[in-house]
């Protein structure tokens, strides 16, 4: 008999059962997914898996006479839990991961140090956070590409890593241990493919204050459009002059950025003033009694920032132009 009498056909039964099975499967999938949601959204510090989050083995970095007290790993999501208000500086500079460890002296429980290895994704990012936080009047570390020491700790760049230490006290023993760990880092931790920053070579060497290079990845000098700006300081007599440059993708972009910064200076109280050097005419701005110079040459944005002495500022700007012209000529060969 047919279905009018209330007895379903075989096909109807099969379809009905299939639908039920599908619904049950959907319900099971939802239950499984709900029981395993991403806890990092909800404040639990969990290390995510995935590229760039592989744990660095810090045990191999323990200096002689010390033991590991603790090891921690932080990602962008919970970096503030370790370094609080400093976190945005790193996150905005391409931060990937922080691996930290505390090492305790086996012979003196009051002697401990903490190691911070910031994975910044590439050497430029690492150099940026290193340079903008660099303390003044420090001693440069001779065996490091970029490194210095204060009275209590060393700070350096190793490829894509920015490394710093804190020490429980000012102690020769602790400092020696930190240097030993630094050497182990250089020997054992692969720095990444890129270990050079070509832009630094574009700065002339004459009168250059050693170790004064900085890299502002964003908003250099308070101007939002100023990204990837390298600076260096030069000594002219008693004056210290800051030069800056940035390599842009092409000359058109360089001209655009230079023009934008010039406009920014004028809009914020700067006044265009005559140049002493003819070649710099139209590029000099008086900014609250300091001299700003900005222009483009080839793919470079170049300039001088807040110089007290216009003559020295223009002299340095001219030296920069010559140096970059040589660099352009060499790259065209």
């Amino acid at each position, binding site marked *: 008999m047919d279905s009018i009498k209330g007895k379903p056909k075989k096909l109807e039964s099969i379809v009905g059962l299939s639908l039920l099975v599908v619904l049950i499967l959907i319900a099971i999938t939802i239950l499984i997914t709900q029981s395993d949601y991403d806890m990092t959204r909800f404040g639990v510090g969990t290390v995510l898996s995935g590229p760039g989050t592989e744990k660095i083995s810090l045990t191999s970095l323990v200096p002689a006479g010390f033991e590991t007290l603790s090891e921690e790993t932080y990602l962008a999501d919970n970096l503030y839990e*370790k370094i609080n208000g*400093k976190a945005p500086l790193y996150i905005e500079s391409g931060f990937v991961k922080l691996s930290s460890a505390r090492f305790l002296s086996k012979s003196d429980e009051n002697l401990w140090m903490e190691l911070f290895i910031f994975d910044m994704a590439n050497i430029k990012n690492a150099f940026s956070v290193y340079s903008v936080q660099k303390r003044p009047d420090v001693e440069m570390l001779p065996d490091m590409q970029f490194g210095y020491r*204060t*009275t209590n700790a060393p700070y350096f760049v190793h490829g894509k890593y920015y490394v*710093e230490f804190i020490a*429980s006290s*000012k102690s020769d023993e602790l400092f020696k241990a930190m240097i030993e760990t630094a050497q182990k880092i250089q020997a054992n931790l692969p720095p990444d493919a890129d270990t050079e920053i070509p832009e630094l070579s574009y700065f002339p060497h004459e009168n250059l204050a050693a170790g004064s290079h900085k890299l502002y990845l964003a908003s250099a000098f308070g101007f939002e459009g100023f990204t990837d700006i390298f600076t260096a300081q030069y000594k002219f007599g008693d004056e210290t002059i800051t030069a800056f440059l940035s390599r842009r993708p092409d000359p058109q972009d360089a001209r655009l950025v230079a023009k934008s910064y010039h406009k920014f200076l004028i809009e914020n109280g700067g006044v265009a003033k005559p140049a002493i050097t003819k070649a710099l005419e139209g590029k000099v701005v008086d900014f609250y009694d300091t001299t700003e110079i900005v222009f483009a040459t080839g793919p470079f944005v170049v300039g001088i920032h807040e110089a007290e002495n216009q003559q020295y500022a223009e002299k340095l700007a001219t030296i920069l132009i010559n140096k970059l012209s040589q660099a352009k000529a060499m790259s065209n060969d």
Partner: protein
Amino acid sequence: MTNPNDKYFNRRRLLTRAGKAGLSIAAAGTVSYLLYDRKGPSRLSAKSKDLVTLADFSVPHEAGDTISIVEGPDRKQTVTKAIELLGGIERFVKEGETVAIKPNVAFASPPMLGATAQPELVAQVVTLCLKAGAAQVIVTDNPINDPASCFMLSGVGKAASQAGAKVILPREYHFRHTTLEGGKLIKNWPIFFGPFAKVDKLIGITPVKHHARAGASMTMKNFYGLLGGRRNIFHQDINTIIAELAMMVKPTLVILDGTEVMMTNGPTGGSVSDLKRANTVIASCDMVAADSYGCTLLDLKPADLPYLAKAQTAGAGTTDLESLKPIMGTV
């Protein structure tokens, strides 16, 4: 030929089945709606009757007895003098009272780096409170790093204990929700409440520090430690949250340690070269006034710190130091 009764039967059956299906969908939808959690587990909320409010621990004060500024190289001496100039510890702590001291122990950092309150300063204030006859002195904070490590490595835990205080580390059950009246950010938010629930007086102790986000970290920012949950989200509106902290917390007294000031790379610092010796300790019943003076040690003006103006507007204190007739001293 189709029997007319067959057609009618199919239509009725269809309508019946459709009706049943509709009811099932409606029932499922209703249950889903009732179970739906809009806020999600990241924002646990409390019913209004479960909200708490921090007590007002302040003491009456007026011009001439609100803020003292003492210069000297020894913290124990300068803080003692600073409190003495305001009338002595007995003005603030009565016999038999319980005192909570909230030092800045935010980081697992050694004392020499100046990122946390100095142990000897905390110990001296504990000693003074006990001398005044306090029944108990509690020292507590809700640090950014692991609490046990922070209290141990900063030296504050040991110094406080040795001075006779009870050190309390934060536990989950210490946190309760609060809503700040007139607040924009502190709404149904967990705060570190337990240790402060039954104390009579509250004293804050913190160093003067540069802060990468706020410009400075001083007496008002010190009470960031009372915030629980994912408090880092407030960094996006740092000036407002600091002002709201000043509205939420009314301490008896704050001690601002400018003996060694963290001039740069704050709030964690990391090198002794970040510090500059200023040999100044400030004791104040007005946090806004304390911070207004403290910022000058960082070579700043009150106008450089937007949170000061916000706090003043909210009635938490004044940036007009002259109006308070600060008492100056030297040891």
